[in-house]
């Protein structure tokens, strides 16, 4: 767990850290901060993006990965339009937990919620424990979109969030999401922009999801 826990006083947090908060920070602030406080419950981030000429505010809920917060973070799946389910490619245990997280997410969310599977820390190729093909296979099997990212180098981070947003956007266009029902995590903004809120997902020991927004 090198750079993630090297300076981290709290060993526990390093154990659970698959990099959800780092991904979010990279997406919202374009910076990488290897040492994070342990996420408690849920934290929030937001960024404006443009899809199809429309400005969309992505409200991202970064849920705690720790088991202790599991029942709390479950609350936030509802009201989410999309979720990123994150594992750490250098730790097989995080990959093995995906099924549990996915079940949790599916059970507590809107059935149309877009879920993207993210294998994070792709910069640590030498310590890779989970092959990319395995991630792809898991995603295929469960109907998820898959990407490997690196919050450290920013590789694919934009794509991960924006592709999720685009999928949500397409579902809105197709009429799958009722944008007038805020329980779907989507709200028409006051000033000409749509706020798509992807909701929260997350994986704890295994995958966390940085949930996507709502707004």
């Amino acid at each position, binding site marked *: 767990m090198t750079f993630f826990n090297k300076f981290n006083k709290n060993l526990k947090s390093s154990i659970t850290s698959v990099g959800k908060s780092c991904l979010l920070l990279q997406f919202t602030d374009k910076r990488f901060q290897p040492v994070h406080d342990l996420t408690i419950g849920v934290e929030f981030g937001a960024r404006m*993006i443009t899809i199809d000429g429309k400005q969309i505010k992505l409200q991202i809920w970064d849920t705690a990965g720790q088991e202790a917060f599991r029942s709390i973070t479950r609350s936030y799946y*509802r009201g989410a339009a999309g979720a990123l389910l994150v594992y750490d490619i250098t730790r097989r245990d995080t990959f093995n937990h995906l099924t549990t997280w996915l079940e949790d997410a599916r059970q507590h969310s809107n059935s149309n919620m877009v879920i993207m599977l993210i294998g994070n820390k792709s910069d640590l190729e030498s310590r890779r424990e989970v092959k990319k093909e395995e991630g792809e296979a898991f995603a295929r099997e469960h109907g998820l979109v898959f990407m490997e990212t690196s919050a450290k180098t920013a590789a694919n981070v934009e794509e991960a969030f924006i592709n999720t947003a685009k999928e949500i956007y397409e579902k809105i266009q197709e009429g799958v999401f009722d944008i007038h029902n805020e329980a779907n995590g989507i709200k028409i903004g006051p000033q000409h922009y749509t706020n798509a809120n992807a909701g929260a997902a997350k994986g704890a020991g295994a995958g966390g999801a940085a949930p996507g927004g709502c*707004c």
Partner: protein
Amino acid sequence: MPSSDSEDFESADEGQSYEKKDRKKRLSSSNYSDNALESDQNVAKSAAQSSNVGKPADKQQDADGWDDFDIDDNDTNIATASDRNDNKSKSSVSTKPAVKESNTGWDDFDDWGQDDGYSNAPREPAKPKLAELDAELNAIKDKMAPTPAPAPAPTGGGWGWSMHSLLNTATAGITTLTSQVSQGITTVLETGIGAPEPEELARKASQIKESKPSSSSNTPSVEQVPESASAQSKDGDGAYLPFGNLISGVTKFVETTGPKVISGGLDTLETIGKKTMEILQDGDPGLVKKRAMLGLSSEDKPVLSQVLREAREKAEQEEDKTEGVVEEKRVVEVVNYENLFNDFDGPVYLEALKLLSSQTSMRIEEQKRTLDAANRQAMEETLEMVVEIYELPEKEEDEDDEPSPEGPKPDAFHERLQAATQDLSIKLQFQPVVKQYKEVLDWLSNTEDVTVDVIYKQAVSSLAQATSLSMHLYHKTSELILASKIRSTVDESTALSQLTVVLRKHISDLAAQFAEKLNSISADNKQQVNEYITNIFLEAGNSSTYLETAFQLALPIIQIGAI
């Protein structure tokens, strides 16, 4: 699924375009001249190359076109960009980076109409001679030196990109140019906006061919229309007239990209003419509708400069109008409490608290269902008891125990917050609310000579922000209580109730201080001042309502600890 550099770059841009627009706007006016200088060198280096590499190089240059685009967007130093480009074109054939994500899902979002234009683009290999190119490039440079300030371009648009691409890739020869210009044009045409008669384009093109057969036939040149847009007046430069005409028809395009005109090789013109005809006639045989739309009846042919001028005026008028409206709206929005609350993410924290609250209620209900009648009765009594304990004191009470202000107010506020929650076994972060309070006090004491409007706006904004931060506090407190292993219903109830008292007091303090500030100003319009003060207290009442709502939402969180 094909993957290429262009895909990756495109996607990177997509995500950033919103933020980058402003920068692009600024760049669009200043880059061209720099770029021209830079590209002069590039041309010399790579012209030789292009004659060797031929077609593969063209392909590569296309990819480079995306590079340029990316660089431009990313606000990178232009000189560096060109250097990089230069290097790239030397080595690119063999070292194309292989960044491959097989399932990106990006392909559907091709804003640029790139694929179509690309595949239809003619591929006529051309091998300009080095000397010829050099001479041409110098000519271009001269033309471009006195760059007139173009009208503001709200979006970079495809043209901006094309321009850069042309400059940087001119080196590779006309083939690339042809395909890229076609792409640009295709994009324009496919936006569905009409254009002048292609026959005319073709006719003019052929005239030009006759008059300048040798030197310019294979040479790309890039030109910006000067402020007056009187392209016609430039003798011998008819080569870009057709383009000017085309653009003048495309009013919207002028609006968004500013008056930039590209002129290209004659082959390109012919291709464009044909392509234009095809597209224009699609669904409009004989161009009847489009002629009517452009007012291109035979007796009154439009004068290019006039059309351009009109387009510009129209664009400016519309821009002014929109800006005016937006400005006006903004003033209204700034003093709208709900919008400000929204800006400070208040609704997000409140929603999170609501989700937590309802999920917890559901868990309580589930537990209840698993019990037999007797136990259920007992549980309901417990729940009811918590409701009784979990109460807010009447508002008047908090005013009674008003502490005498000692020391700095933010510190006193912090202490009250800590005292209120001292019995909780969790650690709460009060810095955000305390810091905001400090900032408000600083503002109040350091702001002189402001209008009552400014104070009023600041007041409403401060109330909305304090309320939003309070929502965050309730939400975080609820999460921590839920996750806590040590539960004490009475302590939790007292703490949350006291916390609410402190926050409510804080809100009314804020309102009172802004009211005081307003009163301290000798305004001519006393009635306006009074109206503002009334509104500030109304909004403070609004804030208190949010606090009470949040307090009530936390009830199930306390209840579940009691059962």
